[in-house]
């Protein structure tokens, strides 16, 4: 997949666990795991907004495009 999800990197930078994030953004732990492992097919703007707000970052910090 050309789009890489760097959620684990941002979580490590903010010293936040996935469970903590899931409580803050109101997304289930299993869905966040799907996102973190790169299995997700799409992400809603509302989810992205909530994650950015919780991690105090930009969408570009979480998502990255790499040429295959």
């Amino acid at each position, binding site marked *: 997949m050309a789009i890489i999800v760097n959620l684990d990197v941002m979580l490590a930078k903010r010293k936040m666990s996935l469970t903590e994030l899931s409580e803050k953004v109101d*997304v289930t732990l299993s869905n*966040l795991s799907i*996102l973190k492992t790169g299995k*997700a097919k*799409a992400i*809603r703007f509302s*989810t992205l907004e909530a994650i950015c707000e919780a991690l105090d970052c930009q969408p570009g910090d979480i998502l990255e495009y790499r040429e295959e």
Partner: protein
Amino acid sequence: MKSSIVTTSLIWICNIALLILLLALFLSGWYTIRGPLIPDIDREFTSSTSFSITNSVAGRHFIYQFVYDADADQRNEYHYYVPANQIFRFKPDDAPYVDASVMDPDLSESEWFGLKSLNIYAGKEKGVPLLGVIPGYNLDRENFVKAERLHQLFMVLSFTFLLVLFWFLRRFLTGLRKAGFFTNSNALNLRITSWLVFSAPFLHYLWLWFIEPAIAEQIRIEGASLAQMPGGGFRFELLIAGLILILIAKAFDQGVKLQQEQDLTI
């Protein structure tokens, strides 16, 4: 809630159908192994001098007649094959006339479940035209037994086919109730069901093509036209039902893809 009741009812209909089909499969299998219902030829005649047994399989009748000739003290067997899909139609002007009796409904008895029936004919009516005639083919004993065995085998195969069909239909319905709507297993069960229905008319036609010429040759009756060709024809209604089901299964596959994308959208 409402759809759940409908699904549960459909599952129960499938259950009942499966039970009936299992029973039918057992009975048809039994008759196939046992052979046609030819009674013991040493049977003693007391009040009647003849009797006949009609065994009907898929619209084809096998008639076995046993006649006792008291004068010659001889017992004769007759075997007929009557394909009900061959009807010769006469124009009213050309139709042969036969004598007929009128049944008295007050005196005649009939009982459905006990299979008892007693017909009492009160009056005679002369000159009833035969506008439609189904011919009977006289077969020798060996061919009669062979033909009826083949037809019984057809019943076994048909019931097995229907059993598989209803089994997959039931699996699809239980899948709808338990695992959600657009799932891979539901799509697979629907796909199998649709292809089974689609293949049914071809299998039916193949079977008729395989079995018919061995039994009955084409005959012609003066002044009559054959209303339906032997073989019963191709079952277009099943083909159309199968095609519609295949289309629904294709749409269902798309539904599964959309559902998977929806599930993986965070």
